[in-house]
């Protein structure tokens, strides 16, 4: 029996003929898990908003710090990271869609893809941070530019706190999705397909949020540095 057929036979009867399954009756008509996740994301917007503001303001007040972002930022690497995160968002959307269709195998494949892309993103960030801390050397071992840390001026502090917080969010998302992947093998998802689809959707919301935060960081923190306003 296919995953979809197995899942369809294990459904509870709550459909209303809209092509969408409404299960839990709440006063808002929205599942509590989803509502709470959206509230959390709204609060997280404000959290990242303050971090981004802090970085931009310190860049404005202290434009000539010990670090020149146009020299140290590796735009090809960051662009690659951005592309990877966007594609992971795409796969996450497919994973949620697969779960709503009851296609467990497709869900697993897509989630594995998201986890893989998430790990690539984190690897790129670790590489970038390592380069920032130890500085860059050419092929002969000569120092091209000196490294900087969390305590190297305001730039180091605000940059590492902002991108590090985002990286932590990505890491939590990866762990969450790995958990969901292994959970899918316990057989419990087949028994409550709607509840499981909601769990996956909530995880997906978190993952997409991580992606949109990076869209803002990539533009406001990385790309804007390369615009010569003088």
């Amino acid at each position: 029996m296919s995953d979809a057929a197995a899942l369809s036979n294990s459904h509870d009867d709550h459909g209303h003929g809209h092509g969408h399954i409404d299960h839990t009756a709440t006063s808002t008509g929205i599942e509590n898990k989803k509502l709470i996740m959206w509230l959390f994301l709204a609060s997280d917007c404000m959290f990242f908003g303050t971090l981004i503001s802090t970085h931009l303001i310190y860049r404005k007040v202290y434009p000539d710090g010990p670090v020149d972002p146009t020299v140290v930022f590796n735009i090809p690497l960051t662009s690659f990271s951005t592309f990877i995160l966007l594609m992971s968002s795409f796969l996450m959307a497919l994973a949620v869609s697969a779960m709503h269709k009851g296609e467990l195998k497709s869900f697993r494949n897509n989630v594995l893809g998201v986890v893989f892309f998430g790990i690539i993103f984190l690897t790129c960030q670790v590489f970038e941070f390592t380069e920032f801390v130890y500085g860059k050397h050419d092929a002969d071992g000569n120092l091209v530019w000196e490294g900087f840390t969390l305590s190297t001026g305001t730039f180091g502090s605000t940059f590492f706190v902002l991108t590090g917080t985002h990286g932590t969010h990505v890491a939590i998302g990866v762990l969450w999705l790995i958990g969901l992947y292994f959970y899918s093998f316990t057989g419990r998802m087949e028994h409550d397909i709607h509840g499981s689809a909601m769990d996956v959707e909530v995880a997906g919301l978190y993952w997409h949020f991580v992606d949109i935060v990076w869209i803002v960081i990539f533009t406001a923190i990385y790309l804007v540095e390369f615009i010569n306003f003088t």
Partner: protein
Amino acid sequence: MSEVSALLPENIKSENKKYHAFINLGLFLAVLTGIEIVVIFFPWNPWLIFWVLAILSIIKFVCVITWFMHLVYDKLLLTLIFMTGMILATGTVTALMLLFSFDDVDVEAVEILELGVLTLRPLLAL
């Protein structure tokens, strides 16, 4: 067969429609990212480049929250909740940027403030 089982093909049809939207959106976002990377190296007016980047980012942002995050398929309340957070965050960023946008910012005052924080830190730790 249960009622929902009978409705499942309808769900699949609806999800398949989304699938094509997701693929198109994925490609569109990849193209926008490519444009962003190229634009910063164009010899254009810096403010033009800035606004092009800002608009492209807003488009990407809106596309992800609308389709990938299902806001277009969900109830309006969720959009309002998220927009409340977004407006507060954007308002904070904008207000702070405007406050610090004057060129005669008293850097010395900021430094004195920081010195005060540094001085108070050991006391607060106690």
